[in-house]
């Protein structure tokens, strides 16, 4: 006999975790390309947009799903976290609005106004990335907003923006050719340094922010089980860094690898965070069971999710296949 009132919050925490991870990976490369606009030439920008054009909308939907799951499965936590992060959430939303509309406006306004929207596309992407990193930093320190926490959150903000830029560069290596591809390799290498620094900072800060997490990390045998996470992440970083010196390779070999390995690094980092904060959804305050909505309501959602999520995965893969290969000009007609 399964105890559903115990299982259901676990299932939804897992679903929410997967949605956040998928969002960070997929919209990560969209936002990253927006950030890299700062370093690109006007003619390169059209290709960069073409590399994400058919996908960004669906990628952003994973954020709606993640926030939606927090809202419907853990309504109390949704309220506490979002009221505590009121202003960063505002910055995030303004960033996402600017990024989303600039994407469309840049191609539809009279030509002489295009550069203005290119600029706003970059600003919007950067704002969204920075505010997500800031929120992660504040969350890791238990929603503490003293000056030290703010300083730490700002550091995480910069590093997450760099991590997204790395994702964007990795996606460009896969989707583009020639000059832009070579440029993307250099961007990737530079962004990787900051990404690694950011992950190290979060990894170090997490256990020291909470004695509970410290104990969870540094007691035997947990420490042996946990050790592979940082070791694998460090190895992947190193391997990726050296790979950038070989790219672009003959016959475009390894073009997709940087993106896949980065996605793997993100997954490892995310697993570490999930392990540390479990079973809390509001750090050190509210567990997933305390915050969960009624089991009956969650059951209604779960039944639908079980059918719909595989279908979503299926048609998402189909869309990526339709627009697979190197990016070509986006045309409506």
């Amino acid at each position: 006999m399964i105890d559903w009132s115990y299982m259901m919050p676990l299932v939804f925490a897992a679903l929410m975790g997967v949605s956040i991870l998928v969002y960070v990976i997929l919209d990560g490369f969209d936002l990253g390309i927006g950030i890299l606009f700062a370093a690109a030439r006007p003619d390169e920008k059209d290709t960069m947009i073409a590399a994400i054009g058919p996908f960004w909308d669906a990628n952003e939907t994973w954020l709606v799903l993640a926030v939606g799951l927090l809202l419907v499965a853990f309504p109390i936590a949704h309220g506490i976290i979002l009221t505590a992060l009121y202003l960063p959430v505002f910055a995030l939303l303004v960033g996402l609005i600017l990024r989303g509309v600039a994407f469309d406006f840049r191609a539809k306004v009279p030509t002489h106004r295009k550069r203005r929207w290119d600029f706003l596309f970059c600003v919007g992407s950067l704002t969204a990335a920075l505010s997500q990193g800031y929120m992660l930093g504040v969350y890791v320190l238990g929603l503490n907003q003293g000056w030290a926490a703010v300083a730490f959150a700002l550091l995480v903000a910069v590093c997450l923006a760099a991590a997204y830029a790395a994702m964007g560069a990795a996606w460009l290596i896969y989707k583009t050719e020639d000059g832009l591809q070579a440029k993307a390799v250099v961007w990737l290498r530079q962004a990787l340094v900051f990404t690694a620094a950011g992950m190290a900072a979060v990894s170090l800060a997490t256990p020291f922010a909470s004695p509970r997490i410290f104990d969870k990390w540094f007691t035997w045998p947990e420490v042996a089980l946990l050790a592979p996470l940082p070791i694998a992440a460090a190895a992947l970083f190193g391997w990726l860094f050296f790979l950038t010196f070989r790219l672009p390779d003959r016959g475009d070999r390894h073009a997709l690898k940087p993106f896949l390995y980065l996605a793997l690094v993100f997954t490892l980092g995310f697993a570490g965070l999930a392990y540390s904060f479990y079973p809390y959804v509001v750090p050190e305050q509210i567990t997933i069971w305390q915050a969960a909505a009624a089991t009956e309501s969650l059951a209604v959602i779960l039944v639908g999710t079980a059918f719909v999520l595989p279908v979503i995965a299926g048609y998402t893969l189909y869309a990526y296949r339709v627009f697979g290969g190197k990016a070509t000009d986006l045309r409506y007609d």
Partner: protein
Amino acid sequence: MDPLLLSRIQFAANISFHILFPTITIALGWVLLYFKLRYARSGDYAWMRLYFTWVKVFALTFALGVVSGITMSFQFGTNWPGFMESVGNIAGPLLAYEVLTAFFLEAVFLGIMLFGFRKVSSRVHTLATLLVAAGTTLSAVWILSLNSWMHTPAGFEMRDGVAYPTDWLAIVFNPSFPYRLTHMLLASGLTVAFLVAGLSALRYLAGDRSEAMWKALRTGTALGALLIPVQIVVGDLHGLNTLEHQPAKVAAMEANWQTRSHVPLVLFAWPDEEARENRFELSIPNGASIILRHSPSGVVPGLDDFEGEHPPVAPVFFAFRVMVGIGLLMLLVSWAGVYYLFRRQRLPRPLALVMVPMALSGWVAVLAGWYTTEIGRQPWLVQDVLATADAVGPVAGGSVAFTLAGYLTLYVVLTLVYLGVLVHLSLKAAREGDRSPDPAVSERPLDQPVASG
């Protein structure tokens, strides 16, 4: 500063800005499908040119709808945590199903609909258009089910101040849902009908006499002329449903201060909430009794039955009149348009000059209608279950004032740019006329030529 009032203004601003765009995309998806099917059947390039012009409008509108919609999903938590804490067990699944069944469907196939014309076969492209249209409509179904539940809650029980579902069919198909959904879908159709007709009239005035312009002009005008009588009937039924479930709202809509028979239909007045009477009243005797009770002696509930717990009268009263007034104007303009376009085969210049500003008539009517029903529910957030004042979060007034100013600035700028781009796209299409390149000629994607020029 009062965080409750500021939060209400902020949410009203967000949702008003948001609803402008889904109102267009819901029906425009189906109109695009109609263009595509007409092209597929006739092979007439003019239909496909129309598709390409309007799919750009769709893309832009969709993007604005998505970004403003994300804002809403966060604001439940940032400003109204009491809403989900109290009725989250009902609202949660409805919102979750909207994301799962509708958002992903439309967002994923949007890419193929917009940019896939040369990547997939024409059939798959048509299917993508159909799925996007179905997705936007499905999204409306879920969200209107939730909104209707907030007006006419059903199928639940309260335990310790928290709502628990008891009957999901009763929740989804709550008493006002069928009326509200039909009313809103028709409103979406009318908004698009007048937008298409209005921007085509703009092309006409700019000297465009292309086949695509005429087709769009006729499609928009005919659609408007067909839908508006249906909308008037459905709106009336919706009003009778509201009378049954939310009499205080109807009393405010009619500015009827006393429960009595022989209630006049107030055409214009200045409702004075202090004195609890109307000033400068102009009315038709027995009108409201006849409309609402189908008899001059019918007793219509008045605001005196709900003293202290009815919505503010003036905004509901005026918003309702704006909506009805625009509805009547739509009837006049669209029928005149059908007469000239289909019987006389021409468009008189004065009519074209009227149709251009009417392009936005749907927006104004939709906002007025939503203000009527949403302000009309106050002081409740969920009728008789949760008061608006009990749902607001603990955020400081200063923070809300700051974000409100930010959102308002952004929304005003974006709305202006959006309208500017619509005009720009129309005038560009007018300049190109029938000279724009020919689209695809075959079912197979590789045969769809990338035209030059």
